[in-house]
């Protein structure tokens, strides 16, 4: 039985994403911006591209942020309903929360996994029920292995690294309502599917090579941002003052202006109502949100900058993530360097800038060392060098 009758998707979007602190203090993981859109928007767009328009989003942590952005789905070509998962008890519990909304057949997708339309297309072409798997060689080491034989799932394994199988779960499923009976008392959907398999049900495994990515740590955001920006088209920006140099794909939204002698090398995206320059340099893989001011003689490379951010003159920002409503004083430096960051149960030494939470205010002449996390609402007075993480709402004088 082919599944071209599937018209519904359940999108799991309730999780907080604590490893993405401080970016997830005021938003759930699915609302983290990649290329100026929340990750969840790419998921919705991939579904709509496959004509899956009846979408149920399971929300939980900071649910209003999801609802306020996607509303009823009108602007995204979808009809969106919201279901509340009271406690974030795992994917099986999340699907159970949506049980009363389920059609006979439906897709289950993870709201925090960037997913290509082709991955969903692959899955839709398979026989019901099916899970989408990808090869470990693609580097997804954080996900559960799936033991597959002759295109059928034998079981989900506990360890991601289990050597007996090359396949990992992408968290994307094509299921029918029979799963509902196995959701009670289970936390994770793979466990519920294991139980379904034990009853004799046949679950297919559909390999996909479509792009698929997950953000677990802040540094993953740069990877996803690079991935998304690599595929943007320039929209031939118009609002440019004399002497502005633009090379490579650069997309600038309405009401933004680039002042004289600025130098922008794409891929770069700039949101609505921004004022950039004069004489600002922006290098690849940078996303700048809406309503952002970047003053003259500032240098930015490989950064993700949120909405309503003010970057003052003579600043330097590399490999850095800045959330919404941040004000940076003149001569601010967040320079990329090798730093030790948390990686599962140990640490890794990687090249990174810093991560600045929402509504942080920073005075003049402040330097932040690589790898530092600034909690939301923190205030840092002028002239400081910050070498360690700053808790939220604190005042560094």
């Amino acid at each position, binding site marked *: 039985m082919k599944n071209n009758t599937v018209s519904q998707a359940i999108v799991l979007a309730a999780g907080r994403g604590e490893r993405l602190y401080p970016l997830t203090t005021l938003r759930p993981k699915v609302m983290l911006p990649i290329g100026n859109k929340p990750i969840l928007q790419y998921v919705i767009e991939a579904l709509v591209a496959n004509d899956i328009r009846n979408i149920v989003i399971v929300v939980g942590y900071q649910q209003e942020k999801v609802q*306020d952005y996607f509303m009823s789905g009108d602007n995204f070509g979808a009809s969106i309903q919201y279901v509340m998962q009271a406690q974030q008890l795992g994917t099986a519990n999340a699907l159970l929360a949506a049980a009363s909304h389920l059609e006979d057949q439906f897709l289950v997708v993870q709201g925090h996994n960037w997913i290509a339309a082709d991955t969903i297309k692959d899955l839709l072409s398979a026989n019901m029920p099916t899970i989408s798997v990808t090869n470990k060689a693609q580097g997804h080491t954080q996900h559960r292995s799936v033991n597959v034989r002759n295109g059928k799932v034998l079981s989900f394994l506990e360890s991601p690294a289990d050597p007996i199988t090359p396949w990992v779960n992408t968290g994307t499923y094509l299921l029918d309502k029979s799963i509902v009976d196995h959701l009670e008392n289970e936390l994770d959907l793979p466990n519920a599917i294991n139980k379904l398999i034990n009853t004799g049900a046949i679950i297919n495994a559909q390999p996909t090579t479509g792009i698929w990515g997950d953000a677990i740590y802040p540094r993953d955001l740069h990877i996803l941002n690079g991935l998304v920006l690599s595929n943007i088209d320039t929209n031939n920006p118009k609002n440019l003052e004399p002497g502005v140099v633009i090379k490579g794909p650069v997309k600038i939204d309405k*009401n933004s202006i680039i002042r004289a002698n600025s130098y922008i090398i794409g891929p770069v995206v700039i949101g609505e109502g921004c*004022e950039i*320059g004069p004489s600002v340099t922006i290098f690849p893989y940078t996303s700048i949100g809406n309503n952002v001011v970047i003053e003259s003689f500032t240098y930015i490379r490989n950064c993700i900058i949120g909405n309503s951010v003010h970057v003052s003159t003579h600043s330097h920002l590399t490999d850095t993530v800045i959330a919404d409503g941040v004000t940076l004083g003149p001569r601010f430096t967040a320079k990329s360097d090798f730093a030790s960051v948390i990686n599962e149960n140990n640490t890794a030494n990687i090249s990174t800038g810093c991560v600045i939470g929402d509504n942080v205010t920073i005075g003049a002449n402040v330097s932040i060392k690589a790898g530092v996390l600034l909690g939301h609402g923190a205030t840092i007075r002028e002239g400081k060098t910050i070498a360690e993480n700053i808790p939220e709402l604190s005042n560094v004088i």
Partner: protein
Amino acid sequence: MCGIVGYTGHRKAHSILLDGLRRLEYRGYDSCGVALPGKKTITIEKQLGFVEGLKTKKQHPGLYGIGHTRWATVGRPTIENAHPFTDCSGNIAIVHNGDIDNFVSIREKLENEGHQFTSDTDSEIIAHLIESYNNYSLPKSVVMAISELQGSYALAVLSQHTNQLIVARQNSPLVIGIGENEQFVASDVPAIAEKTPNVIFLEDGDIAVLSPEKPDIFHNEIPVKRSIHNIPWVSQELGKAGYRHHFLKEVHEQPRVLQDSISGRISNISPGVSKHPSLISYNKPDNIFISACGSAYHAALIGKQFWSNFTSATINVEIASEIESLKNVSQNDWGIFISQSGETADTIAAARIARNAGYTTIGLTNTPNSSLTRLVEFSIETKATPPENSVAASKTFISQVMELYLLTLSCSQIPVSQLYSMLNELRSLPEKAQRTLEMNSQFKEIGKWLAKYDNSYLIAKGINYPVALEGALKLKELAYQHAEAFPAGELKHGPFALLTESTPVLAIVPDGLLQSRMLTSIKEIKSRGAPVIAITNGDLSLISPIVDIAVKVPSSDPMFMPIINTIALQLIAYHCADARECPIDRPRNLAKSVTVH
């Protein structure tokens, strides 16, 4: 009297009429009804309350008909007073939106001629008046009848004997929708936009005869052509996006509304706010006059404070319904008229008076192609899209305040030193509005606490006084709580006598110059035993000890605090209403757009 619809064509009219009426419920929902051709005389179905109920009845086979959803003005909201009305013979039915000023004398005349009336409304006389000319053709008898009417009307007339509808407009909105071998008519575009994108806006004094094939429009009995507008259909069935009420959803849309309002208007490099595109060629005004009703009036009062602070031109603000005449002025005087729907009858009347007095008229609405937009010389569209669904205003109010801020700044000569910080504050408002929404749990606690009381008072000073007025209005509309706002200093000149342990007082306590005077007022209130809640961006260590509850909201420029304080009061009123189990999106006795005087 509020929304009317009509249909003639090849489909069953009943469901088309009901669908149209449902989309006009924002204009009132005291009662509703439809009229269709019957076996011998016209069939009327009517009932009290929402349109939903009419649906359950068996569908009528008629291919033409008219319908009405009512907001009671003349005559109580009873089934007898529900439209449509028929004449004595039952061969003619009418639906009417507007006010007939001379209905008493016409009714007496008709009663003396033997006509029998079944309702207390002014509208019913129109059916009998048309009947009194029944020796003429139907269109002619309608012309004769309405020539006797004084007042406002949007009218649709149905006859048992012909599938032609006669419609007429005078000072009440009416649009015709042109389909293929079918014609629609309604008070507003949403009622027909899903059926056809091609609409004609009738002018005052127009009469149209709608046959299934085409509309024939007459003005002073001479055929006229009116241009056809193409209005793409945008879903009006906006869901609540997971929220329990449209009001709460719309409160949450406000950061985006603020963002859209400032987008492209502010520059830090050539510091200032650019003129609104529709005013680009216009000089700064000598004087400004703003007129509006309800929440829009409160927005105007905030605009007045802001304007007076930053420009030398004088500004006056009047409630629209209080304007009977205006002195003649030069065109360097601007008259600004604010109405969410652009259909507020009182505001439109005021705009007409101002235009005749020589003002350069500017409309501030959230509805392009509204009656107000078409009346004024310049139109500024507020950025509260999609349209507001809740009867009580939230995002449209915020958008009006924001446009008035931007208008002022684009006309002012603020020293650059001060301007920079104002522009930065303006830019950060969407973010601060978002932070205010995130304080919901604190506002919920206050709202639930406030719900126990039947009366409450709000006090504030300066630019926050209109915010207190708006907060009191939300408590009245949403929570049915008797709430009154006073300037803090006024309380002791009378209202003080009302204070007891069961009259909570909400005080807006801004940081800065006014804080100490607000604290003095609060101490006076506390000494009378009334509980006090403070909404403040000031120092909690000073304020908390002297009040019962203090909540600290994000801080901005003192002149922009109304945005943040309004959001706080909206959420408090919402949770108060929710605790009192009020129908938040459709408060009793109210209509979203008030198209009568």
